């Protein structure tokens, strides 16, 4: 049974439905373990003091904010090429979660920087690119809401997502060019020599797993809702036409 079989909405709900409680459970577990471990059991950083604990929220949420947009890009491409409804609805379902993750990344980024930079907001390239990504998310969701016909909406938002991704990348480097960064180097980048010290590293991975699991669970739940909404609309139109 090829993967495209899952594109049939009813089969999609049937197969992914039972996994939901497990996913939420696993997400809750990872999040609580990761956060408690990171919050209580890791020493303060000699430079940043206890604010380093914010890393357990800022890095995973920033990681998710970017990857949710990439997921939306992939699902948009799948919708445009294979015309499978579940992928378009999954993109619609993921966007609000992306907005929340971007807000968390911005909020925790600002708070984390405040003691060091002395102000709540500083136009640091990384934070600014998240602000721009936030605007892209808003535009994407607004376009979905503005169009009634679900097919047209799916097509137009897919085109916007593709074009938006190119410009998001452009903005990322434009912002880097525009203001040399104050941000801490990539804490997770594999090539960075001075990586995050081991004791911070493991709770961070657990938190990251928690965030990813939470996203997968949430996006499945919301996609089911979108499918049911679309089914309701189709039933009502068919009933109206049968009566007419």
């Amino acid at each position: 049974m090829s993967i495209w079989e899952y594109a049939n909405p009813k089969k999609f709900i049937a197969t992914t439905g039972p996994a939901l409680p497990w996913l939420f459970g696993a997400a809750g577990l990872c999040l609580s373990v990761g956060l408690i471990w990171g919050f209580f059991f890791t020493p303060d950083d000699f430079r940043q003091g206890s604010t380093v604990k914010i890393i357990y929220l800022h890095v995973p949420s920033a990681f998710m904010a970017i990857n949710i947009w990439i997921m939306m890009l992939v699902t948009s491409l799948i919708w445009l090429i294979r015309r499978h409804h579940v992928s378009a609805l999954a993109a619609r379902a993921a966007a609000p979660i992306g907005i929340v993750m971007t807000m968390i990344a911005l909020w925790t980024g600002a708070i984390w920087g405040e003691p060091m930079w002395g102000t709540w907001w500083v136009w640091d390239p990384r934070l600014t690119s998240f602000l721009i990504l936030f605007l892209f998310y808003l535009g994407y969701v607004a376009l979905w809401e503005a169009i009634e016909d679900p097919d047209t909406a799916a097509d137009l938002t897919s085109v916007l997502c593709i074009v938006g991704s190119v410009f998001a990348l452009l903005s990322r480097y434009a912002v880097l060019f525009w203001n040399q960064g104050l941000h801490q180097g990539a804490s997770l980048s594999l090539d960075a020599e001075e990586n995050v010290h081991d004791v911070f590293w493991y709770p961070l991975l657990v938190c990251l797993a928690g965030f990813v699991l939470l996203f997968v669970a949430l996006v499945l739940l919301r996609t089911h809702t979108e499918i049911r909404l679309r089914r309701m609309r189709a039933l009502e139109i068919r009933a109206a036409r049968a009566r007419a």
Partner: protein
Amino acid sequence: MMVDLGEYSRYVLGAYGVSLLLLGWIVWVSFRRAAKVRKALEEVEGRDG
């Protein structure tokens, strides 16, 4: 057992508080909406079949 956060405790608690609030909000909204739509769908399916 309360860990000593030093002078930055306001910041760390603020960051954690708001973030968990936001996460909680999106989860709660998603569940509420899922339940509402599931109920409405059952009602529509009952009527239109």
